[in-house]
């Protein structure tokens, strides 16, 4: 979409407006040198008043050329869509009445969901579209879910690593996955027909992860953060509900090791000397432009 300036209220082409414009131009060109020469405000005011009282018709070679600047609207970045898929954020695809996002062209309801680099990565997975649909059904910005899988596994359905039992694209522990998937199912019963409910199914994990992010965002709201961002909720997802909430309100110069146990730090590759601010910066770098987006849509 292109925003054009200069169109509103301009009756270009009409004879009357052309004459007016020519008169105005003549007046300006007559008095501008005086103004430019640094004449006092009184002189300028008197001159303009005199000119207004003694307007004479002037001829000109047509109306002045009208400059219409064009500014590209700031929007989401371009997606590289896998062939055969429909970008649900496009608004022009085959999804009918629009997706309801800020950027959609349809008549959607206008959620907070927006595009991001992370979303692009998740969309490249066979289950990406399904994860987006599930996120929106649960009231979560799909970019928040995408950012989570980007940080956890690069959105790859990987197995457990090291001593942790966390597994899959969203690196969920079995107990957390089971509880969150059950909660997601309660919120959106249609999940039963679109997901297997197994921890090794990325679409099921996406639903469980979206539910976990939702609880995290609500917990942070309950703690006074009115519109938690993806970065705010990242601590909750990474370190659990009590520590994650605390980190969201910690001084950025505090050490992560003062809040998080050494074993958890080591499991997440965080050095003992890393500050809260440095950790947030490194997470932001991984997440990209989704970091500042709202989690709840």
């Amino acid at each position: 979409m292109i925003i054009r300036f200069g169109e509103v209220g301009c009756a270009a082409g009409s004879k009357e407006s052309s004459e007016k414009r020519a008169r105005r131009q003549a007046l300006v060109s007559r008095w501008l040198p005086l103004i430019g020469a640094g004449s006092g405000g009184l002189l300028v005011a008197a001159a303009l008043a005199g000119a207004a009282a003694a307007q004479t018709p002037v001829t000109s070679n047509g109306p002045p050329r009208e400059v219409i600047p064009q500014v590209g609207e700031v929007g989401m970045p371009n997606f590289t869509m896998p062939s055969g898929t429909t970008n649900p954020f496009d608004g022009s695809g085959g999804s009918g009445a629009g997706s309801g996002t800020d950027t959609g062209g349809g008549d959607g309801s206008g959620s907070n969901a927006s595009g991001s680099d992370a979303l692009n990565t998740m969309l490249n997975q066979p289950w990406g579209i399904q994860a987006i649909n599930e996120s929106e059904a649960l009231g979560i910005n799909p970019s928040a879910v995408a950012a989570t899988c980007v940080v956890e596994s690069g959105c790859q359905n990987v197995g457990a690593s090291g001593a942790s039992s966390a597994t899959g694209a969203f690196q969920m522990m079995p107990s957390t996955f089971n509880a969150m998937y059950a909660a997601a199912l309660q919120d959106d019963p249609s999940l039963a027909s679109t997901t297997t409910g197994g921890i090794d199914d990325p679409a099921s994990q996406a639903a469980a992860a979206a539910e976990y992010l939702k609880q995290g965002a609500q917990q942070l709201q309950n703690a006074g953060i009115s519109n938690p961002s993806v970065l705010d909720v990242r601590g909750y997802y990474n370190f659990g509900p009590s520590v994650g909430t605390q980190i969201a309100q910690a001084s950025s110069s505090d050490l992560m090791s003062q809040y998080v146990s050494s074993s958890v730090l080591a499991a997440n590759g965080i050095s003992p000397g890393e500050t809260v601010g440095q950790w947030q910066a490194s997470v932001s770098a991984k997440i990209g432009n989704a970091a500042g987006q709202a989690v709840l849509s």
Partner: protein
Amino acid sequence: MGRMKSAWLFGLGVALSPILSFAQGLHAVRAVPGLACMLLDNKSLEATQQSALPPVFAEPSRGATRIGYPSSVVFVRWPLVEKNGFVAMVRLNGQPGWIAGDHLQPWHPMNGGNAKCTPSLMSNGRLGTSIR
């Protein structure tokens, strides 16, 4: 020449100050009197689900309304106020509440250092922690 250089530096400082203050991130503005830091018990610290946390009640009773869940650092009223096994506290949003005392332990940094925790008013206008 020296004055011009100073003016340049002043202008540069004014221009960069919003960027520098942003880079500084969240920070404590001042300590909040009447509160002290305590820590949830180890089991609660390791909880991965909200439902595993001890609830915060509106009154010092298990039958009272649950108003939320605590974060790892619990801001208790200081001097300590105890009633029916519950401890008076203030949540991060400033709301007063009560938490079961047997879910709390004295605050200590997780890295075993000797830093101190101060309940603080943060640069975003909310309660938070500063550990020094």
